[in-house]
């Protein structure tokens, strides 16, 4: 249970981290270069964390 829950939580958080910078940029609270770096980092985390459990789920 624990081994499954952690990657799922990390995956969800990475999606939050993917969206949040663009929302902050829209609100004028973040610079675009920072947005791009955080989105890239969130992308790497998403694929690293989500691939194992989603791979299993899709059979």
């Amino acid at each position, binding site marked *: 249970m624990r081994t499954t829950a952690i990657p799922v939580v990390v995956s969800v958080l990475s999606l939050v981290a993917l969206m949040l910078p663009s929302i902050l940029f829209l609100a004028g609270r973040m610079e675009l270069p920072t*947005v791009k*770096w955080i*989105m890239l980092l969130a992308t790497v985390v998403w694929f690293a964390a989500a691939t194992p459990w989603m791979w299993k789920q899709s059979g």
Partner: protein
Amino acid sequence: MAEQKPQETTGGSEFEREPVPPDRLLGFKSFIGMYAGEHTAGTELMIGPLFVAAGVSAFDVVVGLIAGNVLAVLSWVFLCAPIATRARLTLYYQLEKICGRRLVTLYNLANGVMFCFLAGAMVTVSATALGVWFKFPMPELNDLYPNSIGWVLAVLACGAMISLVAAYGYKVVSKIANVAAPWMVLVFIAFGLVGLRQFIDATGTQIASLDDLWTLARTSIWKGGDPLPGQVKFTFWHVMFFAWFCNMAVHVGMSDLSVLRFAKKSWYAVASGAGMFLGHYLAWLAASILYAFQMHQDPGNTKVLPGPLAYQAAGLAGLLCVIIAGWTTANPTIYRAGLAFQAIVPKSSRFRVTLITGAIATVAAMFPALAMKLNDFVALYGLLLMPMGAVIFVDFWLIPKFGLRSSYAEWSGHRFNWAAFAAWVVTLAVCLGIVFIVGRWILYFVALPGWFIASGVYIVLSRVYQRQVPLPAAKG
């Protein structure tokens, strides 16, 4: 634009020649995820900008897309799903029962060719991302032919990789596509948010209310006016009909019988709304905002290139999104085109057929006209396969009311129902004739009267056909 499924021989799919049994039916949630993933494809990054190039206004695109997408969902719910959940057969088998095996083979050929070109447009989208890294000249909006060696090599590299993977490991890519889908949808939305802020900064607009936002949309993003040279002017009606019919092959054309036959209830088809309003609303609007901003900065730069557009908005994550969106959707499209062709020549090796199919798609992708006229191509694709959807609808619901027999090919043992074939050919001849006479703009509309033409011709000719064709002795 969804990567669409051929119905012929979906390798390994179940219940190809029998109804789906009750214990294998799926719940509503399965369809939401599937539709949302399928309709957020690489080509959305081409279609959104092409609306701006077509001189669309804010009201026309924002409201027209809502109307068109609602009509598309209703087409799934009221045309496709009721037949799918009653017959529970694949499109291929349903058609074979009505039209006979030989006519289905012809349908496969048409479907396979269109798949090749669709995959070509997806390869084009991926190749534009390589241009950001390698800085070779990329196609202009009105280019018909490849304009640089770098472009040809980039398409060749993308096409070769996609084709090889399709031939070797289709299932792996379909899993990657599943993993990428939620991430991709959010990156698309981020494109829109970033583009919106860039517009606010570039125009110095103060946004304090929705009214201010709407004014920005009206005056700076989707300004209306004349289309760019070579583009058809898009009004509300163009947008609505385009959104409705861009997946016509799937809903009105009944391609999704194969998907919705697994639905417990026919209303589950409303799940298609997830795909329509994420992929064909948010993603199209977001991509069009990026292109409008490019035009705002440099009105002379009319290139529709998803790679550079995504890179300026979201950096490397955006570029990855373009590559993965193009790749994960081109891959199954090439694979399925290969299956369609293989159904015509069953003894050929699937590996070889997929590679040849990929090669054709790659060559098509080198010609930018395919992607730059994607809206026209998509409309044509729907039109081409729609008449067979009308034949299925009429055969299922109406033919018995006229004292005729449904699934006549199965009942009579005939392999070629020429009434269905004539309905297909006559409809296409009339619709394309109208397009040639009246002009390209009407391509987006002719499919609607075309559906009624196909239905009428099929009913009338079935009366003649079912009377004239002698039955095998064993049939009564």
